[in-house]
């Protein structure tokens, strides 16, 4: 019914997925004229300049400290490693990320499974809902959350636990588009119906089917969705700041950037490395779930 249309690529994630699914182009390259070849190299070199100079400059800045005029390139690094706030920030944001991933999976896996198995006609509705974070920018989203849950009758934001809860809930919503895409792609690769019928004929309950049959078969998809979620959550600034979660990694780095001269460069490099690791893991996990495009979250 709507299966054909709605499984068409939706959004950058869909495009990416379709591209990765299709075999790499084996078409022999056209003979290039020398001029076009040169132009390509020029474009590439300019791009490399633009993209690497800021990273190089950040690195050079991080090794700049000269206490008493004696060069000490590792000083800023040692200061970061001695900074409690750095570890608290990383720890807090990683924990928030992991809880986000768990809640997101508990909601999205059964939902995507159920949509495929029982209610394919609700797929456009579910997809639309998961795409809401693209329509409501983070700053507007957190605005609504604060006004809704800050005041009566909820009053959730007056306690730390309440604010942490709202923060994680917001991150779960932000993770939906990526998680749903990843899990749905994973489900497309396995025969959901046969697996379900086989399990049922062996007497398995729905919970058992989901936990013992569907989840294990989605390992790769789940992991790539999880790493992308982690990359979004750990660097997130806007929502964490306005929910007064100032110990989180994003707000911590922001404050450090205003107050210290050299250590922010170190933390910026670490932040870049973390993004690189998360994307590298997704690439390693292979084709089916490799989705590196993100248009909501930490801008």
């Amino acid at each position, binding site marked *: 019914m709507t*299966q*054909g249309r709605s499984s068409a*690529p*939706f959004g*950058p994630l869909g495009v*990416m997925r379709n*591209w990765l699914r299709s075999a790499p182009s084996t078409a022999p*390259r056209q003979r290039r004229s020398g001029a*076009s*070849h040169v*132009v*390509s*190299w020029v*474009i*590439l070199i300019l*791009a490399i300049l633009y*993209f690497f*100079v800021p990273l190089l*400059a*950040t690195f*050079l800045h991080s090794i700049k400290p000269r206490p008493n005029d004696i060069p000490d390139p590792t000083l800023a690094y040692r200061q970061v490693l001695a900074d409690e706030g750095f570890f608290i920030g990383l720890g807090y944001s990683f924990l928030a990320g992991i809880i986000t991933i768990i809640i997101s999976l508990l*909601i999205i896996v*059964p*939902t995507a499974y159920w949509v495929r198995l*029982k*209610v*394919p*006609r609700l797929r456009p509705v*579910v997809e639309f809902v998961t795409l*809401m974070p693209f*329509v409501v*920018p983070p*700053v*507007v989203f957190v*605005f609504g959350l*604060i*006004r*809704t*849950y800050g005041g009566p009758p909820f009053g959730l934001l007056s306690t730390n636990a309440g604010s942490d809860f*709202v923060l994680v809930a*917001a991150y779960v919503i932000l993770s939906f588009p990526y998680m749903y895409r990843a899990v749905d792609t994973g489900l497309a690769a396995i025969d959901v*119906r046969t697996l379900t019928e086989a399990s049922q004929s062996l007497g398995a309950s729905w919970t058992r089917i989901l936990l013992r049959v569907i989840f294990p078969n989605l390992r790769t998809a789940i992991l790539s969705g999880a790493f992308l979620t982690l990359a979004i959550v750990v*660097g*997130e*600034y*806007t929502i964490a700041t306005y929910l007064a979660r100032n110990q989180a990694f*994003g707000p911590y780095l*922001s404050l450090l*950037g*205003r107050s210290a001269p050299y250590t*922010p460069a170190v933390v910026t490099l670490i*932040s*870049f490395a973390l993004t*690189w690791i998360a*994307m590298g893991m997704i690439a390693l996990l292979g084709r089916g779930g490799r989705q*590196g*495009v*993100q248009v909501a979250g*930490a*801008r």
Partner: protein
Amino acid sequence: MAEAVVIDERGALPARPARSFGWAWLGLLPFFAFSIAFMFLPTSYLVIGSLLKDGQPSLQNYADLNTGIIPSAFMTSIEISLVTAIAGGILGFLLAYAIILGGLPHWLRTGVMTFSGVASNFAGVPLALAFVFTLGQLGVVTVLLQGLGFNIYEGNFRLTGKFGLELVYLYFQIPLMVLIIAPAIDGLKKDWREAAENMGATPAVYWRRVALPILTPSILGTMVLLFGNAFGAQATAYQLTGGTLNIITLVISSQIRGDVLHNPGLGFAAAMGMVAIMAVSIGLYTVFQRRAERWLRS
């Protein structure tokens, strides 16, 4: 399509015929309940608040969008988003063209694609800081150029100004364009080029008459996506400018911190204005995407 056919042929599970749609949707209840609580309820709060003036239903807040700093904040946001969408779109297209059809070694292509995945996600606070260390008043490149007798701050350039912000946004706009447009360029079939050449088309004619028309919906669609991407960005702008630049995300930030507009309803209306613009851009993107698939599907 094949999938849909299989489902139809085999029918639903024996115990629950396909017609029992009435209860099946209950399986989606946790998902919908969560989305309503944490996405739709907060958004509705803003919608309702924007439609109330002194407790009475009113459209006055929307009329008031045309007062004070709000029109110029929207205009600056739109301008920055347009500039970075068009510039990022063109530069990203050129880069994608270079790595796919430019005759560069294949490993370079893989490298650029992987890096694009990282750079498109490297945004917000750390990105702003990296540019401060590069082109800020005391940035490494600024100082280096000064040593060569060239002071970039002599003229109008300010990293914390509009142009500076645009320069920084390109760091995630260009890679996003590369990620989305590279597969489309890769999808151009060799047959089309050969057919064009057989009929005597030069490469320039092939590009103008065949390749570009096929790619146009993809290019425009991605540019619309880039527009929305920049329009909703807050963290990068806040860190870079310290909240001094008058763009709409920063107006809303100040409105959250303290009612700087001296009118809560106006703040809600401004937020809804953002949502409306984002909705239009995502909608346009979807339309362009559907058009793009027509040629690039099979």
